[in-house]
């Protein structure tokens, strides 16, 4: 019996079981921690205990430094869509609807989700790595020893800047996306800019814009909170920083995909 137990504990099945239980445990621990940190961050925000200077610094980082990559991704995504559909639609005599389709796609989905992915890769990963490095080099412990709450000092300015800057980034990226779509449609199918932009207005509803901006606010806050929390919980040395960064990126991707699904179900179903 003892030999069997020993043999079983060395088996691949048991190792898989251990891995699975560890992953499940880690999933619920992280989820609980993100929820708790969200509550802590918003309690400071509702009390207006916000360092405006730090918010300004983080906003520059969140908005300005992420803009080139965000514009490239959203712009290219719109160009690709236009290249795929414009030629065919013009052939079918639906050229007047190309602008409408591209705009609807960008405002409802592409603009905000692609900006979210770009911001996660550019900013979320760097937030997680920065805070994880502070954790493993005991800077966060030093902060606590000096009786300064790391949530207030590190999380709040980053989350507030995410909430403020994400919608602005999405607006700029969406405009660039529509312009890119117009150029691509013109090159691929010879559709005039006038025909494209005239149909844009048919695809642009106030509800779409409102939902798009609401999504941007939620995505901005989610990316900042998830990234900061994953960084904050880093353990060990350089390896721990790497694990925390990867975890932040994966969790942020999944989180905004879930939010996107919830928004689509709530407003367009």
């Amino acid at each position, binding site marked *: 019996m003892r030999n069997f137990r020993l043999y079983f504990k060395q088996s691949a099945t048991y190792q898989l079981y251990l891995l699975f239980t560890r992953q499940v445990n880690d999933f619920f621990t992280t989820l609980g921690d993100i929820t708790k940190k969200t509550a802590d961050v918003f309690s400071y925000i509702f009390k207006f205990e916000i360092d405006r200077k730090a918010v300004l610094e983080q906003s520059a980082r969140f908005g300005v430094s992420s803009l080139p990559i965000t514009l490239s991704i959203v712009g290219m995504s719109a160009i690709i869509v236009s290249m795929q559909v414009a030629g065919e639609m013009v052939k079918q005599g639906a050229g007047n609807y190309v602008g409408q389709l591209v705009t609807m796609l960008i405002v409802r989905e592409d603009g905000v989700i692609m900006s979210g992915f770009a911001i996660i890769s550019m900013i979320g990963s760097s937030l997680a790595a920065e805070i994880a490095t*502070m954790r493993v*080099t*005991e*800077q966060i*412990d*030093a*902060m*606590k*020893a*000096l*009786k*300064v709450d790391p949530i207030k*000092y590190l999380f709040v300015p980053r989350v507030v800047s995410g909430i403020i800057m994400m919608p602005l980034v999405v607006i700029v990226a969406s405009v660039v996306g529509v312009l890119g779509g117009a150029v691509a449609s013109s090159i691929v199918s010879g559709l005039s800019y006038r025909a494209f932009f005239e149909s844009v207005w048919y695809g642009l509803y106030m509800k779409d814009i409102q939902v798009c901006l609401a999504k941007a606010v939620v995505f901005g806050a989610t990316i900042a909170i998830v990234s900061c929390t994953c960084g904050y919980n880093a353990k060990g040395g350089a390896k721990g920083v790497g694990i925390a960064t990867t975890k932040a990126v994966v969790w942020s991707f999944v989180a905004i995909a879930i939010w996107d699904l919830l928004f689509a179900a709530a407003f367009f179903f």
Partner: protein
Amino acid sequence: MSITVKNLVKIFDNKKVIDDVSFSVKDGEVLAVVGFSGSGKSTILKLICNLINLDRGEIETSLGDVAMVFQYSALFDSLNVFDNIAFALKERKEFRKKFNQEQLEQIVAQKLKLVGLEGIERKFPSELSGGMQKRVSFARAIVTEPKTILYDEPTSGLDPISSTLIEDYIVRVKEETQAASIVVTHQMSTIQRTADKVIMLYQGQIVFKGTPKEMLSSSNDYARQFVSASLDGPMQMLAE
């Protein structure tokens, strides 16, 4: 009594890292905590500083701040020396209202003078040597005039001269602030130059208590092994 620790227990992963530890440190007194790596020395400091929660026991400290000097300095690398030292004064409500920029500059200059590093306010931690970083972390720790100061291996990784300098600062800070201090160290020179009393930990328990002088001449097997740096004795590295 400035620091009183009673029957402290800390458990990590079902293992008692600190097992029924009790001691006290008076104002203006330095206690050295020695022992093998992994014997629970730094954990005691983190418990006193409230960085981790205790499982059982009591910790009482005098009213006022508990400051901690970290093993690897733990300076905020995105802030310069001035902002590092003034950090608590700028970020904590009770100090923010009390001091203006000019006063902050005076306080920081005064603390830097105490650790012999005048005029480096605008430098970043990455521009400083290990010894200088340690001294800046000293200045940062004492900026709120704490009543309790904890030093986690303050001389590790430093050359002998820098170590002596740091040991002198510990004594100087003790004399000037009359704070109760705990120094976690492996080095006999640090114990002899700074400490009024010593406790030795092994596997989370206190195995020796006394003065540095008593430790040197003690017949206690643990103390003898530590002082002589011998491989033979009750403390086995492999057991860790």
